[in-house]
């Protein structure tokens, strides 16, 4: 090389004699270009493997017959709308036609651009009425607007002949929720409420197999659950995309700040107990196959500025249920100042405990067998629960310190259902299958209504500062 370099340099200095670029310059200059070919080859392989893995994890392949296409509109493309959209992009057989969002310069544009990347040519609208008037081929709409718009949006879309997937909370008022149930009945169209755990394979396994069929928990006596979320600053927005005041006012918002943080405002949202708690309290009613008789609750805006956080940042509630098996007390807390221990639901029976959450990362399904319960070997053989976790050796003399008041630790088993899809995908798929007539809704309007009654009462109970009762007919429309 040293020799070559000398020659090179001579060559270069020799350029003054007129030679522009010699062969050596060219060869050495391009010497690393083939690496790009290698990179491309490796990248292509890697993408292929990743795709194959994803397909394998997605479980059984989609039916060979191409599903009939469903024409879908999106109403509300904020953070939640975006989550639903990204899940829907993994669902085959959908054709997106229109996007409606009043934040035309930001949310709407983002959704339209995303869909463009997936080769969907969609029209953007600010006003949903205009969308309903102009888009004549729609089969379904997915609504993810702020809670106080759900009722009107859903009712109008149902009346326009669309099947509706509406995010939870179904409405911020029971009046609004009732109108939605009536509209679904009158129009005969489908209305799915977005309590997506109802379609989560792990939750379905736990209810159908563990609780109903195997009865592994014995008699459920207590339930507890929580969603702990760390402190979060208010949502901001790029100043140049501020929505003009008259448009904000037209759609029920006093300011851009309120538009971005509507969940905290009375009359617009329901606060964390509704945003977070509703998902989990819905599971209480589902797994217990019952509705509560009463609720006591304590809560308040203890941490944030009450002027901009009208709804309670901290809520603790206790429901009581009367079931054919006996009385059940169910505790739920949501707080928004510390995210430790995250979110889960925990069902405790006299034979076992089921600890479950939507997440794969934590509480992804554990079941504990009380030592007094009959052995679970047959359920392990059937694959309902995993083999128990082998515990390490007990510290010397551990048994000696076990007080008579203490219980022996139960065996820990896992729920052997892992789930790698976006959380909302199965629930959306259930909705689209129902449109095609190959499934029934996992969370129809009536079920969403029961949950709304159960959850909205907590805010009332906080205000009333006493136990509030539910009358049995309160849950039906």
């Amino acid at each position, binding site marked *: 090389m*040293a020799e070559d370099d000398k020659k090179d340099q001579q060559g270069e200095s020799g350029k003054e004699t007129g030679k522009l670029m010699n062969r050596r310059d060219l060869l050495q200059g*391009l010497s690393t270009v083939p690496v*790009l070919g290698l990179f491309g080859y490796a990248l292509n392989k890697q993408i292929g493997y990743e795709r194959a893995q994803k397909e394998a994890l997605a479980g059984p392949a989609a039916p060979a017959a191409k599903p009939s296409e469903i024409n879908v509109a999106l109403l509300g493309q904020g953070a939640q709308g975006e989550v639903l959209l990204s899940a829907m992009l993994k669902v085959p057989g959908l054709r997106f036609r229109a996007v409606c969002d009043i934040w035309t310069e930001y949310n709407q544009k983002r959704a339209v651009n995303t869909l463009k990347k997936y080769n969907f040519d969609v029209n953007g609208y600010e006003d949903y009425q205009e969308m309903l008037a102009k888009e004549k081929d729609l089969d379904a709409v997915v609504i993810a607007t702020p809670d106080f718009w759900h009722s009107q949006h859903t009712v109008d879309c149902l009346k326009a002949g669309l099947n509706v997937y509406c995010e939870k909370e179904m409405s911020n008022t029971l009046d609004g929720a009732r109108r939605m149930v009536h509209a679904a009945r009158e129009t005969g169209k489908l209305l799915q409420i977005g309590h997506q755990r109802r379609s989560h394979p792990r939750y379905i396994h736990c209810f159908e197999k563990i609780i109903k069929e195997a009865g592994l928990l014995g008699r459920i006596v207590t339930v507890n659950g929580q969603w702990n979320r760390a402190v979060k600053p208010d949502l901001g927005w790029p100043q140049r995309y501020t929505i003009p005041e008259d448009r904000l006012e037209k759609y029920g918002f006093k300011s851009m700040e309120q538009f971005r943080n509507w969940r905290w405002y009375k009359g617009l949202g329901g606060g964390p107990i509704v945003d977070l708690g509703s998902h989990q309290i819905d599971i209480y009613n589902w797994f217990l196959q019952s509705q509560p008789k009463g609720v006591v609750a304590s809560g308040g805006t203890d941490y944030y500025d009450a002027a901009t956080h009208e709804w309670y940042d901290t809520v603790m509630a206790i429901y009581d249920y009367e079931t054919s098996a006996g009385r059940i007390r169910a505790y739920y807390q949501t707080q928004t100042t510390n995210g430790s221990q995250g979110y889960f639901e925990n069902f405790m029976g006299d034979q076992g405990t089921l600890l479950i959450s939507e997440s794969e990362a934590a509480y992804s399904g554990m079941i504990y067998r009380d030592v007094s319960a009959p052995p679970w070997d047959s359920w392990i053989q059937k694959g309902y629960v995993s083999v128990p976790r082998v515990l390490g050796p007990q510290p010397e003399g551990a048994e000696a310190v076990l007080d008579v008041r203490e219980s022996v630790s139960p065996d820990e088993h896992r729920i052997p259902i892992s789930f790698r899809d976006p959380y909302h995908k199965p629930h959306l798929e259930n909705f689209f299958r129902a449109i095609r007539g190959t499934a029934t809704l996992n969370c129809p309007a009536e079920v969403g209504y029961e949950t709304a009654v159960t959850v909205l009462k907590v805010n009332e109970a906080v205000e009333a500062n006493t136990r509030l009762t539910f009358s049995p007919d309160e849950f039906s429309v």
Partner: protein
Amino acid sequence: MEQERFSRLQMMALVVLRVVIGWHFLYEGVAKLLKPGWSAAGFLLQSRGPFAGVFRWIAERPDVLGVVNPLNMWGLAFIGLGLILGCFTRLASAAGMIVIGVYYLCNPLLVGYFYSVPMEGNYLVINKNLVEMAALFVILVTNSGRHMGLDRILHVWFQKGRR
């Protein structure tokens, strides 16, 4: 620098070093570009140390992230391309050093800091980011693209243009 001479083996070693770092950068960029909705927000939110405030400020602003994310993804890819091809080698290695420096400042591995994210390997202050940064420093000062890389061709053209 022009006076410096490298043996064939030394030059090969420098080019290999440049190409593998380039490959790493290019794939870091491409992998992010291929992930729909990839964002630096998660990484930035975990920031520790004296600049944590700045990084979190970025992470919490969608408009700033809207600039930072593409800049990061495309920046990594172009730095990678530049290093592999030996094209604008010095610019690419300097930019690479800055990018890695920023990553390190975002999550500095200072003694007494314990991160919740698992890291492969064991590090005391120096992690692989810093090693890569130091390697880029070698690339920067030896400018191997000038000998084996498109820079050589560019250089010839440039010389011609000047005359």
